[in-house]
């Protein structure tokens, strides 16, 4: 598949990395020769110097026969124009990053009338992800499959967790909940565990279960957290605006601290139900005065990563139950685990995951199509949801007779409203939703076989 990526910024770079790993042909277009040079050195891609809105450049890059163009330059207008030009030239699918709320409100017009297959708004996506975390605060992060029927939650085992030192096969006896641990992160290693795997304190567990079972699980291991009712947001970026709006819709009380007066006025106009505080979020006295000790959750959204990290640590120390940290530069996020910061969101990762999901879903084959895709642990493993079609190779055969790849786990079967944790005797049937956790790259459902 030929993929053109226009604009190599934070998102462009991570997209190039992930898509080139999937083996597609990539041509990147950027106006900065230095960025092109470093990107070509890092990944096996072709670089073209020039503007993505230039007809000649697009033709040179191969827009006439490209399968997909992703425009992620800093300018919304440029992205849209670039996509439209590519579409006219013959590119089959076009994706534009569009950030301005003005455009975001006309998404359906842009997809129906302008033919944009997907518009992405990283700030909105990040805010949406954060709102989901706040809705379910017991886990570090939750992702949903099958339109919310199955959740994938990430938790960290604390030192006093009753599960420490137990083998996975013993868990069902201890727990009052039907859950499945589909991946474990220990240090830098990611393990797809078997029954005799022993979990230890400090491990990060990835768990799939229905919403109700997940709640039961959290209660029985004593890490259940009350619903979040009050949230303090520090930093008044676009993400803060989207998040405040989403949380307001969920009925939470939101307080937003922003240090620029002009922006405060704008926000107070846009968010009538949110308390806007004009002041420096990095000021300890101000935070205490505004009652940071008493809020259920705190979200750090300033434009400086370091400030977000320090403030998160401070909030944690004051005993805020749920802290979400926004990070833009993800090079060292693995170190943050040791700081006891758990919920870390980076807009570029969220965005690229969404685009990747779309790309996988483009590979709609005979066997089945990718419905959902999450990259976990910095992309080291993936959780995918397939909609199984009438695929003779895998349907109707008991799982124990299927020759599956190693390091691949069939986590769940979703049949109608029922969630099945498959055992050796179960079979996959056409129409099932199938959730797979693996460190391989699975593009087609048949790829799960050896």
């Amino acid at each position, binding site marked *: 598949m*030929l993929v053109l990526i226009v604009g190599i910024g934070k998102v462009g770079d991570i997209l190039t990395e992930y898509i*080139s790993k999937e083996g597609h*042909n*990539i041509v990147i277009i950027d106006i900065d020769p230095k960025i092109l040079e470093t990107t*070509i*050195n*890092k990944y*096996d891609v*072709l*670089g073209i110097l020039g503007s993505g809105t230039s007809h000649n450049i697009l033709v040179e890059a191969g827009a006439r026969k490209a399968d997909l163009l992703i425009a992620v330059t800093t300018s919304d207008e440029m992205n849209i124009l670039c996509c439209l030009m590519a579409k006219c030239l013959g590119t089959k699918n076009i994706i534009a990053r569009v950030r301005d709320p003005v455009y975001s409100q006309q998404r359906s017009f842009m997809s129906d009338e302008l033919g944009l297959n997907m518009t992405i708004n990283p700030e909105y996506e990040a805010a949406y992800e954060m709102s989901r975390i706040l809705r379910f605060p017991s886990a570090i992060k939750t992702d949903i499959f099958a339109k919310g029927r199955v959740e994938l939650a990430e938790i960290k085992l604390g030192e006093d967790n009753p599960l420490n030192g137990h083998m996975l096969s013993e868990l069902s006896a201890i727990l009052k909940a039907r859950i499945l641990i589909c991946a474990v992160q220990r240090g830098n290693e990611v393990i797809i565990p078997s029954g005799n795997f022993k979990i230890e304190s400090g491990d990060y567990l990835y768990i799939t279960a229905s919403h109700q079972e997940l709640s039961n699980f959290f209660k029985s291991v004593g890490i259940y957290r009350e619903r979040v009712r009050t949230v303090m947001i520090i930093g008044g970026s676009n993400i803060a605006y989207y998040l405040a709006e989403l949380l307001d819709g969920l009925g939470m009380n939101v307080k937003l601290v922003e240090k620029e007066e002009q922006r405060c006025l704008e926000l107070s106009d846009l968010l009538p139900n949110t308390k806007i505080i004009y002041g420096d979020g990095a000021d300890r006295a101000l935070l205490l005065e505004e009652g940071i000790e008493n809020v259920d959750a705190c979200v750090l959204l300033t434009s400086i990563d370091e400030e977000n990290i320090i403030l998160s640590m401070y909030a944690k120390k004051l005993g805020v139950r749920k802290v979400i940290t926004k990070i833009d530069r993800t090079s060292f996020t693995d170190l943050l685990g040791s700081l006891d910061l758990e919920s870390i969101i980076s807009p570029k990762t969220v965005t690229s995951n969404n685009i990747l999901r779309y790309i996988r879903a483009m590979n709609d084959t005979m066997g089945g199509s990718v419905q959902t895709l999450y990259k976990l642990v910095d992309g080291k493993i993936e959780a995918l949801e397939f909609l199984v079609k009438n695929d003779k190779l895998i349907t109707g055969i008991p799982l124990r007779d299927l020759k599956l790849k190693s390091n691949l786990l069939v986590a769940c079967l979703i049949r109608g409203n029922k969630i099945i944790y498959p055992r050796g005797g179960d079979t996959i049937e056409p129409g099932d939703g199938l959730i797979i956790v693996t460190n391989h790259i699975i593009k087609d459902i048949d790829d799960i076989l050896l």
Partner: protein
Amino acid sequence: MNYRIVLYIIGHIMRIEGLFMVVPLIIAVFNREETILSYIIPIILLLGIGTLLTVKKPENRRLYAKEGLVIVGLTWIILSLFGALPFIFSSEIKSFTDAVFEMVSAFTTSGASVLGNVEILTPSQLFWRSFAQWIGGMGILVFVLAILPQTETQSMYIMRAEVPGPVVGKLVSKIRLTARILYGIYVALTIVVVILLLIGGMPLFDSVLHAFGTAATGGFSIKNSGIAYYDSVYIEGVIAAFMIIFSINFNLYYLLLLGKVRDFFKSEELKWFTAILISAVTLVTINIYHIYGNIGDALRYSSFQVASMVSTTGYSTVNYHMWPEFSKVVLMILMVVGACAGSTCGGIKISRLMILGKSAAREIRKIVYPRSVMAVKIENKKVEDEVINGTIIFFIVYIFLIAVSVFLISLDVFDFETNFSAVIASINNIGPGYAIVGPAENYSNLSNLSKWVLMFDMFFGRLEIYPILILLSPRTWIKKL
């Protein structure tokens, strides 16, 4: 530095060289030569050591610019050392230095020989010499990139270190496919040469070997008198034409394949190349007219020699050392200029000279109009300042290397013309120079020290200085930041 990955890739390359050596072995068996054992031992050595080095895949497969340069530099040296073994074991070339010199000259596509009489070599040895030249022409690492399955993403560093030219780009997004296209064009054109030479009445074996020499712009012949042996205007014409064709940037042929004929002819480098060719042929023809007395012969010899020099091949049909001084200077300039970047030629390359000339013009203009701002443009695209600086540094180091080499070679007793032309002919991968190392002579008269200096010059020329320079620099090997 990541030594494991360096050794791993070199292991792969040794195995490939071992496999390449099977071809002359087959020829030796076919001709019932006595030299069979002199191939079997190196093949076993290469395959054995290569396999040992590649048994375990290194876990850390990170490859940066430094590793890329070291891999390329080491590969070529190791390749030449092992490649020389058949000559030594069969004692067809007795001295170790001479055997290595012959092999370095082959792989770097220089075509400088230490053999007074090449016709006494067995066919398999002749084949190995020319075959090595052909492999060296496009580059062994490019070959590896073409055949290995999904290579590491950072292998661009390797490709850049091996393919000549100031800026090396890819043709398509995948490096492996790029390498395959390049080799595909190379193989196809070589086959065309073989067929055309066969039509001209050259025996098959000779055709293949001369096609190798032409394609790589190397210049090894299997006759003592070179191409003149065949005394055929047709054969000379074919070889001259293809020396020129192999001097043109291969990326342009890819454009032709894509049907972009207009873009092909738009290439600025190609225009300059054509201009240089035509003016050189004209000047030399006029200058040597009085020797041959008729325009036809003068044109025939001058055009062949100009093609041979500008493409840095080094084939000769006449002893041009006997030509007037003016023609010799023209040929010497052609040797230094070389042809297009991204071809199989040596020399500085026209595109580098274009950058140098245009930036010099810019600087001069700046002296007159201090406030003027002007971009250096090649092929209608702005050349980045980094590339300009890189080119200038390349040129300075190149001059410096020539000076040092001439200085070292002067320890021999020969005249300046010999010393200077030997260095120029080596560092630009031509082969024959003037006087003692001229077309009618060979390099056997030089001392061992001179031979080693020239070998390094050939490496410097083929790999465009940096890989070998990095290899020789102690800082590469000392653990320091």
